[in-house]
């Protein structure tokens, strides 16, 4: 399954230079008043950065560690008229498209700079490496498959799906059905084993809501799970409610999840959250024939039907 991953640090360096030039141009010409990208943070970890002058645009970076999903920062800019620039790679553009399809940000207020992606590394893993190995991974392009972000393993959209300008050449796309090996393993368990599996994993949740905050499909003004009336979710920090939170959230983003896996990556207690999302995506493909359920569509899979949908009565 995991496809051949080949980092191209040289290409990324070129893209970084082009990005700085492009962003500086957009800012100096007044096309945008702010540009969303990354800058070098503490210990080499890129952090989100909002450049507002051509001068600041020089601080933008583009390297194998730019894993953050920038699209959700747009929600902070909802009010106002100003035009916003943003840089996206393939999965970043899916996140952006998710917000656009959910009508959470006006396309006309965006200038999107796209960069075809040759893969990204998991910052947590890379930054934990000894200096030499880290150097080799980041600059020499010698990264073990295990260092890549999980999502790179199933990525079929390395080229931006939304962009006003694309920097660099398109990278070849690997088509083919999405694979869900973890889900298949869980499906093989007995109901009791599955129940125990989820209970053990999910009761660790401390409801820090990092998963929800990073998710591009979770963009409600006020999360319904925070509401008091109706009380969709109990407030008590007991396993039952922790599990409900995740079970509801995964079903809420069913058909809209872009499979970026950020929820899982940012989870502060290491819960493999994508086990739920992946299951729903796998079933959406199997039941409704949606071949790429992670790619935002004009009509979401649960917002439509066909006469030929499997009959539920026959299902038992």
């Amino acid at each position, binding site marked *: 399954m995991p496809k051949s991953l080949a980092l191209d640090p040289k290409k990324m360096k070129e893209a970084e230079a082009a990005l700085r030039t492009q962003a500086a141009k957009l800012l100096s010409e007044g096309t945008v008043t702010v540009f969303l990208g990354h800058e070098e943070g503490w210990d080499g970890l890129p952090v989100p950065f909002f450049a507002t002058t051509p001068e600041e645009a020089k601080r933008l970076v583009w390297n194998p560690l730019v894993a953050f999903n920038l699209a959700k920062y747009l929600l902070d800019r909802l009010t106002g008229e100003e035009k916003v620039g943003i840089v996206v790679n393939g999965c970043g553009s899916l996140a952006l498209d998710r917000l656009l399809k959910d009508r*959470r940000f006006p396309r006309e207020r965006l200038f999107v700079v796209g960069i075809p992606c040759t893969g990204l590394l998991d910052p947590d893993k890379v930054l934990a490496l000894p200096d030499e190995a880290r150097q080799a991974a980041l600059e020499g392009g010698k990264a073990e498959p295990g260092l890549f972000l999980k999502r790179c393993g199933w990525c079929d959209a390395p080229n931006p799906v939304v962009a006003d300008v694309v920097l660099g050449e398109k990278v070849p796309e690997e088509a083919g059905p999405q694979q869900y090996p973890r889900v298949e393993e869980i499906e093989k368990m007995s109901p009791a084993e599955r129940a125990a599996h989820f209970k053990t994993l999910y009761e660790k949740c401390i409801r820090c809501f990092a998963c929800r905050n990073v998710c591009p499909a979770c963009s409600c003004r006020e999360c319904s799970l925070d509401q008091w009336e109706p009380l969709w979710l109990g407030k008590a920090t007991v396993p039952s409610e922790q599990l409900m939170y995740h079970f509801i959230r995964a079903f809420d983003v069913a058909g809209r999840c872009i499979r970026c896996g950020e929820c899982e990556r940012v989870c502060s207690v290491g819960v493999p959250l994508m086990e739920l999302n992946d299951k729903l995506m796998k079933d959406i493909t199997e039941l409704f024939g949606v071949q790429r359920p992670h790619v935002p569509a004009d009509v*979401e899979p649960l917002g439509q039907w066909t006469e030929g949908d499997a009959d539920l009565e026959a299902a038992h």
Partner: protein
Amino acid sequence: MKRVGVFLCWCGSNIAGTVDVGKVAEQARRLPGVVHVEENKYTCSEPGQAAIVKAIKDQRLDRVVVASCSPRLHEATFRRTVESAGLNPYFFEMANVREHCSWIHTDKETATPKAFDLVRMAVAKALRNEALTRGSITIEKRALVIGAGIAGIQAALDIADAGHEVILLEREPTIGGRMAQLDKTFPTLDCSQCILTPKMVDAAKHPNITLYTWSELEKVAGYIGNFTVTIRRKARGVDETLCTGCGVCQSKCPVKVPSEFDEGMGMRKAIYSPFPQAVPNRPVMDRANCTFFKTGKCKICERFCEAKAIRFDQEDSLIEVKVGAIVTATGFDLFKVEKYGEYGYGLYPDVINSLQFERLVNASGPTDGKIKKPSDHEIPKSVAFVLCVGSRDEQKGTTYCSRACCMYSIKHAIQFRDKVKDGRAYVFYMDIRTPGKSYEEFYKRAAVDYGVEFIRGRPSKIFSRNGKLVLKAEDTLLGRPIEVEVEMVVLAPAMLARNDAAKIAQTMSISYDGYGFLNEAHPKLRPVETNTAGIFLAGVCQGPKDIPDTVAQASAAASKVIGLLSHEQMATEPMIARVSEALCSGCLWCKPICPYQAIEAKTITEKIQGKVVSREVAAVNSGLCQGCGACTVACRDGAMNISGFTNDQLLAEVDELLGASRPACAAE
């Protein structure tokens, strides 16, 4: 704190026989919020209702729960009771402890706790009931009738006679429909044209009726009292205002194609009127067959048209009309008898279907009413009529009985025997069904007075032998195989829903059954209404029927329309969707899910940190919304809700039943 009154009905022994009502009352008294519990023999009776009114006043109740029969039976009754005591009627809630409990259980031990569960669920919901107010809408005093067969014409005339405007829509070049194709009608043998054509003329001349022929329904938007309908007026190729209907164009046109009106038994031209009594008497141009449209040359019709009415460059046009009610009378198609390969239709020219026979026997038909075999134009000396071709046949056709075929085939046999005195008529049937006034007598006359020979059996094969057609069957009364030799065979095809019935239904947001027949709101008690308020049904589009039933149904639909249009305003149900603008993120995923196009984007402005900003949210059109609630599930924000079935109420029912501890603030 809310003050709930619970009224437990015995319904004589209907409930009290299986449920220990006293015990339920005792437990109900301890429910939070309940301040009054009372038992009644019959809560729906006058004293029962009076007790509710009295308790509301004496106990200052602000919520009322009645545990009795199904809300589908008495919810409206009790809402009125509650309203008469000055309480908002939607503060009332019902627990169904009869149909859903006492009537289906036998053991008091288990039925009683279940009844109490149902009561406390209703109390939990009632605590969250809100005061709702009915709205009102203005009614557009005009009706649309779709389809101008006998059903549509009858409905249009009735509505127009009552003084309301009617738009009568027909997709064929003329009104009249199927009935115009028929010769005589059973059981009286009235001439179909003689009784129909005067009605066609009445419809065309009626000052309240606007006729649109050669026109199709394009779109229906809106709701009861306020539909906006888009009609496609297909290019006729003829300026209707200039044309005098002289018919010269038809006579000069050099193209001949099989006539649809004559079911292929005769020919028509490429510019044509389907039959001489067509209404309006204006031809249409059939572009698919017109020489000019095929080759760019001809225009003979234009040359001879003295009125200068021919328009080769005419295009379809769309018009929009506003109506308050719609009658759907779109008629039927016939089963394709070719599907019975063993009957040889298409292979043997003298195997025809019943509608073709109607054209043959019709005095104004292609043979001037002489029954002639299509093969050699000779008069057949023997004819077999085969019933149930496609009807009552799950394998090849439909399961249902088409209802009219027995009678019209008997009529055909009589007509044949009348015209061919020495001829023999056979009717192959499964069962002869004659449920109608004077129908059985008609059948007897055919057998006794006309010597029609009835054979109970469905032919297994029809084949040609020595220039004759042979029907092979089992005579199931004699219990032996038979062969009958005839010169002509008439197959009685099943009546089918229009092949585009589903599309028509979807255009109007009404439901249809597995066969494509449009669904009435209730098979017995609301037979001409649909589940979409303001849309009514007439004729075979709802299910197979004969002319008398069709006319009766058309008049029934018309009376419903007249009743509706006689009001200036009508009340609207308040249990519909509503949006919390504060919560709505404006994603509008609810919009494509709404079957009534009731959701639109709306721009609102609000003040954020002193700045006025605008954003889009979903807005519900209360006239369009029917309260199905599909939108609420698509709404992840929790911004969309259905009054009367709110998320909070439904969750409260679940929680109450299963015993969750809900925080006090949510319950209050």
